């Protein structure tokens, strides 16, 4: 059973993602900001992380960098309402960039692809 860490500052999004991903058979852990994400990462040791970019305090890119410093091969998906972050070269450090959508099909397919399922 693969473990996914979902990082997003919106409670309802976290709720939705947890419900949807657990239906798919994943174990889901939630974090509401960058610091919590890093703590949970160390403890939970997920197989994949979805990162919202725009968050209070540390933004997703920062979290991405920190985690990459520790874990190079961990699949990380940047998940955002914004399209233009694609311009930031740091986003290339992630494995995928998904624009948030009510239909989570694309997200799910990306997760499956990255986890080679």
């Amino acid at each position, binding site marked *: 059973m693969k473990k996914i860490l979902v990082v997003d500052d*919106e409670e*309802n*999004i976290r*709720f*939705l993602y947890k*419900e*949807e991903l657990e239906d798919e058979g994943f174990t889901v852990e939630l974090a509401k900001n960058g610091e919590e994400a890093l703590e949970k990462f160390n403890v939970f040791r997920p197989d994949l992380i979805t990162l919202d970019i*725009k968050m209070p305090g540390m933004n997703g890119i920062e979290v991405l960098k920190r985690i990459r410093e520790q874990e190079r091969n961990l699949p990380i998906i940047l998940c955002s*309402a*914004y*399209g*233009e972050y*694609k*311009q930031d070269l740091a986003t290339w450090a992630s494995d995928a960039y998904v*624009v*948030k*959508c*009510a*239909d*989570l099909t694309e997200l799910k*397919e*990306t997760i499956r*692809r990255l986890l080679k399922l």
Partner: protein
Amino acid sequence: MSDDVRPYELLKTILQLSNSSLSLESKLDRMLQAIAQTLQSDRCLFLKPEVIRNAGMLSRIVSEKKPFWIENGSSLPRENILPEEEHLISSSFACLPLDDETSCQGILYIGFQRNRRFSPEEIDLLHLISMAMAGMIRKTHFPSLSEQTRFELTALRELGRVVTSTLKLEDLLQLILVTGSRILKAKGGVLRLMDRNTGELKVNCQLGDYDQIPFDAKIARRVLLTRKPFSLQQPGKGLPFASVVCAPLISQGNSFGSLSFYDLEANPSTFSEEISQLLLTTVNQISSSIDNALSHYEISDLARRQEIRARRLSTLWELNKALLTTVNLDRMIELTLTAITIGDGLRFNRAMLFLLNEENQTLYGTMAVGPDSAEEAGRIWNSLSAKQGSPFEMILALQPTSEENSLLNSAIKRMRIPLSQDQCILSRTILEGRPFNIQLPTLEEKGPESSCGRSCQLGSGVGCQVAQQLSHDPKAYAFATVPLWGKGKIIGMILVDNLYNKNPITAEDLHFLSMFANQAGLAIENTILYRNIEEVNKELKEAQALLVHREKMAALGELSNTIAHEIRNPLVSIGGFARRLYRALPAEMPENKYAQTIMVEVGRLERILNNILQYTRDDSIVHEACDLRGILDDGLSMLADELDDGRITIARTFDEQLPRVMGDRQGLKQAFFNLFTNACQAMQEKGTLSIRAHPFSRNGTSFVRVEVKDTGKGIAPENLHNIFNPFFSARESGLGLGLPIVHKIVTSHGGQIEVDNHPGEGTAFIITLPTHPGRHPSVGLHPKAG
């Protein structure tokens, strides 16, 4: 000897002789005889005044007016006696001056071989006799003197009449020469005037062939320089004339010519004095009148020329007034050329204007004004001469459209002369910046050498064709060109000719044309600048409007951006949970339908959001090499909701080897998705959505072509031109941003979008995108793109 009778007898004889009607010589002879007889002298002579020299005994007698009574000739001191006078010295002699208190008429000489004494009575007697003789001689001369004087006066009066009869110079000079010859009784003469500019003494008129004699020129020159008359009689030395007199023509102290007369019929003995005197008097009279005539001639010439200049300046002013009436370039050129060709303007037959294109250094024929044939020329001149009006009015009144169909105008508009053809006169006018006046070659001349070898006046291969077009015979084409100056640079040139009336183009004409061309050049340059300013102004206004629009859009975009992003997150939640409900609730339950509705509406909202965000996005997005097949498939998969009810069939034809396209994956996906959505919405009932993708090449460049075709109702033709305009929507729902976004994305990828619309049958959109250079798809199977 009876002293009382003999003196009385002698006196009586003298007086009788004096009053007789005999000739002067006879009288003198007899008187001398009587004296000799009475006094018993050996020699009695009358010595004429001409033989009396300036020095010597005789001259002393004359000057002192005292007689010599020499009783002993041998004892006379000899030093005052001239050799010629020696023969007069005899033993005794008397010399009495014949002086009548006015002038000396001569000397009476009475000589004796023997010594003799003169008695006081004899002295008295001889004194009386000498006075009587002097009086007689003088009286005799009176008639001839007065005769001469009368003759002179008559001649002068006649001459005076002649010189005041006319001021026409040629006639005057001829008359003077003829009359003068008659007065002086000469066979012929030469009148020369000095050319005021060159100083040369030119023959102005002649009587007979005397001007051919080279000696005449020398005499004239000498007389001119010395300002003194010259006369020569019987020169011998092989000169072909017998006598000549020449006098200078003097006015206000300066000599300005010479008048010489040849072969005069004068008494040889009195030749010199008489003739010179007469000539001088004549010449004085006529000099001032010749001078007057000359001045008059010069003044009227000057006045005439000044009048022409004044008239031309006034015409120039009128023409310039006309030029000020417009800022339109074509009208300006037309006015310029009209002014050059009308009768009250510069009067050339035809005028053509060429403008210089600076970038490609070529002269372009711009406009021509002038009749196409001699008949037309005649017609136009006849009708124009009937019109009245100042040049200003005439120029403006000429109809503009009449030149549209002119052959000449069409021919000129086609002409192009590159400045590199530097033999052509037209090019040279520009390159050398000066006017040219090419005249008809005379029969002897060959005409200017030119590279085209046809020796045409315009002188070059290109010019040759020009000459051919402009005139019927390029070898004998007379024309002139002037450059048009703008502010400090040459902007073109004007060519003029007098093809129909064949008037030669004078330097004065060309000068006048240059003056006008300078004004015209400035005026034309002004209209060009004005037009440029108008265009630039328009562009600036448009750019400003665009800028304002962009800023508005940018502001709007930023606002939309922010709002859209704020809205997205909640939409994800709403839509996501609605989906869960939809999946969880059984299909029979109405709640299932409710959940579905929420889902669908959220989907709609998301699409709108996407469109807004897409449309207001910055164009500087990252491009990568994309495989269109994957993108198209992704787009299709996003259509899942639309395709659910199965009324639409998908026909998918993708080429195996589709080249990659350099682009924005997300944008392209959005674009195609919008097209698919539109297509589905056009097909309300059943229909087929066909998507074709294949490689395509044109002009050596390779492209990818995607065709999205539906079988819907098509686009109404009146809306067709608006479909790519944002916010225009023929549909009831939606913002109408779908197609504008597609257009924007396609064009930002350097591609093209075309519409093939058949109302009632369907619409096809054809997208052409340039391929990514250097990257070719590998042959074989693709893994499915993610």
